[in-house]
């Protein structure tokens, strides 16, 4: 009987604690991914704008840590950098707007250009180069 009481008391403490910590950590990881994507997109767009206004031939390389939850990264109309991010409650499109015209070396369909490599998680080097007086190219090297 004493043994059963000890086991029951242990479970009574462990089960709710595990549940509460699991839920806290799930929401925290969501917020961390969101912050990472926001920082990633903002850095790319800021660098692209800076390189664009520095003139043709200017370039820079950024080292970025891409989180796991990124499904794809595309450029739309040369002004929207869009990350498709998976969350526990659906897929959200995180959009960053650039005043410089953005291009990439990836495949394009109509006005949507895919940035290969930017959707794979891990540490990546992103090259941002002003290729003409009107556009900045973003590529993962």
């Amino acid at each position, binding site marked *: 009987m004493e043994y059963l009481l000890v086991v029951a008391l242990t479970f009574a403490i462990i089960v709710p604690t595990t549940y509460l910590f699991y839920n806290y950590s799930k929401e925290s990881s969501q917020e961390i991914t969101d912050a990472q994507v926001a920082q990633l997109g903002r850095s790319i767009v800021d660098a692209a704008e800076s390189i664009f206004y520095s003139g043709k031939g200017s370039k820079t390389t950024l080292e970025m840590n891409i989180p796991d939850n990124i499904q794809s990264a595309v450029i739309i109309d040369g002004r929207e950098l869009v990350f498709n991010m998976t969350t526990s409650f659906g897929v959200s499109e995180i*959009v960053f707007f650039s005043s410089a015209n953005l291009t990439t070396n990836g495949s394009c369909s109509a006005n949507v250009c895919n940035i290969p490599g930017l959707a794979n998680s891990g540490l990546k080097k992103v090259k941002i180069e002003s290729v003409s007086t009107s556009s900045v190219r973003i590529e993962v090297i």
Partner: protein
Amino acid sequence: MRKKSQAALEFLTTYAWAFIVIAITIGSLYYFGVFDFSKYLPQKCVFPSQFKCLDFSLNPSEVKIKLANNLGEDIRVTSLQVTNDATSPISCQTTNPPFPFDWAHSTEKDITFASCSGGAYIAGERTELRIIMGYYAINTPSKPVHVINGKINGRVTS
């Protein structure tokens, strides 16, 4: 021999009674919601940082959220939907402001979903709702619609 078996039977009977009492106690505690640990979780509204959720309230048949447009661009909201994972999901008949509506950058918007029903949206109970919003940037030539998802986890006021 008979005395030994009687002692064994009494011993087992005592244990059986103890088990029955424990089972009834646990059952009663479960019935009264003591094991509903979700009520100890904080009430939260989670959106991507580009649409920061500033406040929310869950009233019977009504969901209110206050969001900030941190995109740095003026947008037009084309769709707004509230749903959840229930077998028969929550459905709200009207939204205020009615979409499509324009939303200037760096401004806040109070959005109200009214006439909500279904989806186990019951006063006094904890609920988890998903908000799906479609929008496009007014200054982008092809006006591609982007979708964002947000989550509200809280208790419906009674």
